[in-house]
């Protein structure tokens, strides 16, 4: 119930989790003395010692691989990948090892680990430090995938991730660490369930992570012109109980999926395809994808901002969907 930050909520979830379960260890670059590149693990090495908060060499594949082995043998490791952009060198350990072990081994060997990482734009960190790569993970059976947008979700979803029997990829957003909010006593919604962040009747905006906040800002602006948008925060991308999305779209007849990622091949495409399949008879308008441009992220702050959806763009697109009011740029 305390007003806190996304960063602090994550830190608290780790602390509470580690106090409750002595098998939890943290393993990653700079998680110890440095306290995490974004400060999430600050002080934890002093609280839990260097055997539970392990500063690792800059060896992403082996960090994730070591976490897998620790998980297989009874620990519950939280491997930290400093930027989701670095997963490219460790995708084998994540997708071929962590995700598939239970299956390949006929159910004998689970890999209960959490891969904590962060992504997204907003810090002029350029093409190799600003990506949103959740689409790669969504395409891998055996992984769970979580992307909290709120302070309370940062806390509760991380606590819940720490109790899953299968590998969870937990992607924070670098632009949300200073977000302020409450940690609710109970999770805002169950694991795997999306959450209606704002109710509305005219269209459904499905989104997750930082884009939830852009969508909410757009919804507020839309309300001023008499359009009520329902904003659904996916929270968990896998497992995802998508029935609620379908119900919302069936009611509103209009859907827009908003992602910060490159739009082609994105999770937005997948959600749009599902809605297209399941809500066909209820749709009044095409399911729109609003996403990042199909380009690497440029370092220039202006170009970076311009390549990512904004509340303004979302509202423009919504006005067209609902009222056929063409935006100025169109």
């Amino acid at each position, binding site marked *: 119930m305390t007003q806190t930050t996304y960063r602090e909520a994550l830190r608290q979830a780790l602390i509470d989790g580690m106090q409750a379960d002595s098998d939890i*260890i943290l*393993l990653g670059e700079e998680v110890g003395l440095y306290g995490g590149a974004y400060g999430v693990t600050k002080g934890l090495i002093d609280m839990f010692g260097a*055997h*539970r908060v*392990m500063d*690792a*060499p800059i*060896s992403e*594949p*082996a960090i*994730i*691989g*070591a*976490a*897998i*082995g*620790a*998980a*297989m*043998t*009874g*620990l519950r*490791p939280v491997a930290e990948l400093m930027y989701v952009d670095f997963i490219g060198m460790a995708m*084998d*350990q994540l997708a*071929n*090892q962590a995700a598939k*072990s*239970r*299956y*390949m*081994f*006929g*159910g*004998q*060997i*689970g890999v209960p680990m959490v891969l904590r990482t962060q992504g997204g734009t907003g810090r002029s960190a350029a093409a190799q430090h600003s990506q949103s790569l959740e689409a790669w993970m969504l395409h891998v*059976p*055996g992984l*769970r995938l979580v992307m909290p947008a709120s302070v309370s979700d940062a806390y509760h979803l991380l606590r819940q991730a720490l109790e*899953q*029997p*299968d590998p969870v990829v937990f992607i924070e957003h670098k632009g949300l660490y200073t977000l302020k909010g409450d940690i609710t006593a109970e999770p805002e919604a169950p694991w*795997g369930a999306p959450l209606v962040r704002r109710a509305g009747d005219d269209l459904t905006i499905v989104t997750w992570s930082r884009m939830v906040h852009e969508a909410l800002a757009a919804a507020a602006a839309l309300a001023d012109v008499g359009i009520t948008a329902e904003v659904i925060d996916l929270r968990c991308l896998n*497992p995802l*109980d998508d*029935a609620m999305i*379908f*119900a919302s*779209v*069936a009611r509103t007849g209009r859907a827009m999926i908003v992602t910060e990622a490159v739009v082609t091949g994105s999770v937005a495409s997948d959600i749009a395809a599902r809605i297209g*399949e*399941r*809500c*066909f*008879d*209820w749709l009044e308008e095409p399911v729109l994808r609003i996403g990042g441009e199909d380009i690497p992220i440029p370092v220039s702050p202006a170009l970076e901002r311009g390549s990512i959806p904004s509340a303004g763009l979302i509202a423009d697109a919504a006005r067209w969907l609902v009222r056929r009011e063409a935006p100025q740029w169109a």
Partner: protein
Amino acid sequence: MTERTNSGAVARYRMMRRIRTFEERVGELFLKGESAGSMLHLSIGEEGVVGLTDLMRAGDTFTTHHRGHGVFLGRGADPARMMAEIAGKETGYCRGKGGSMHIADRALGHLGANAIVGGGIPHVVGAGITARNRRQDHVSVAFFGDGAMSQGILYESMNMAALWHLPVLFCCINNQYGMGTRVDRSAGRVAFAERARAFGLAGETVDGADVESVYQAAHTLMASARSGQPGFLEISAFRFFGHARMDKSPYRTPEEEAEGRLRDPVARARATLDAEDQVSPADLDRIDAEAATEMDAALASAIAAPAPGMQTMFEDVYAPGTPAPFAQADRLRAILYEAAP
């Protein structure tokens, strides 16, 4: 068999013979068209690894590469369940989901065979962390081929093991080839143990044709690993046959093969037992015959075993009791019948 004989050496010989015979039956399984695919990598010529597996204890864990049948038998595997897995059957170690390249058995400490060269190596680092944190007296051993010496993840893993003083042993079974590439065509410098030492490990190379030498070298390295000084053991061997079942090894000469096959750990152990330990040929023949009987039975039972039911395909993706994959038929049904969402 008399009490005078070296019972350890006899047991190792028996194990090596069982491995050799098992692998021969795997070849038959393939020829009978009963194996799941042709990606079967026989460990014939590498049985000397028993000198190391024999030293591992209950609680010790390990991972193997794609050529891991012998290692797993050395750790006590049931050949019938192995063979069934290789045939892709429900009764196999992995319910017919893994096959030859993905056999595992948590109960025997086998954390999994891997079809990614080097893929299983870092897992022993994690197992070492578990042992350290829980103050367990367990060593975790990674088995891999000379090909994995070219995988960066090996060096990352060795560095971590050394840095954190983990009870871990890296075992490279150098059979001189990665597919068609001889080690001197894949390594700028072939002194592999030297690489390990440069990373702070105890590193040794031993002749895998002599299982007792392997045993000696492994004894020292396992003891030091158990006390927190990780090690690296290169077991030098020769891959008797092709890379997998379809490979006829056109990239090497018959002479090289003939010479390589002289480095036969099974034949050598038998000769030594005969000459030095005075185990009688009759006793050795009996061991060989028992292995043949056992492996014939394993082969037959695997062929007779049932294929997995279609519905099992959706099991084991996630843990029981958690949301399972949405089967395509169910998805299409949901679209097809257009129930209002």
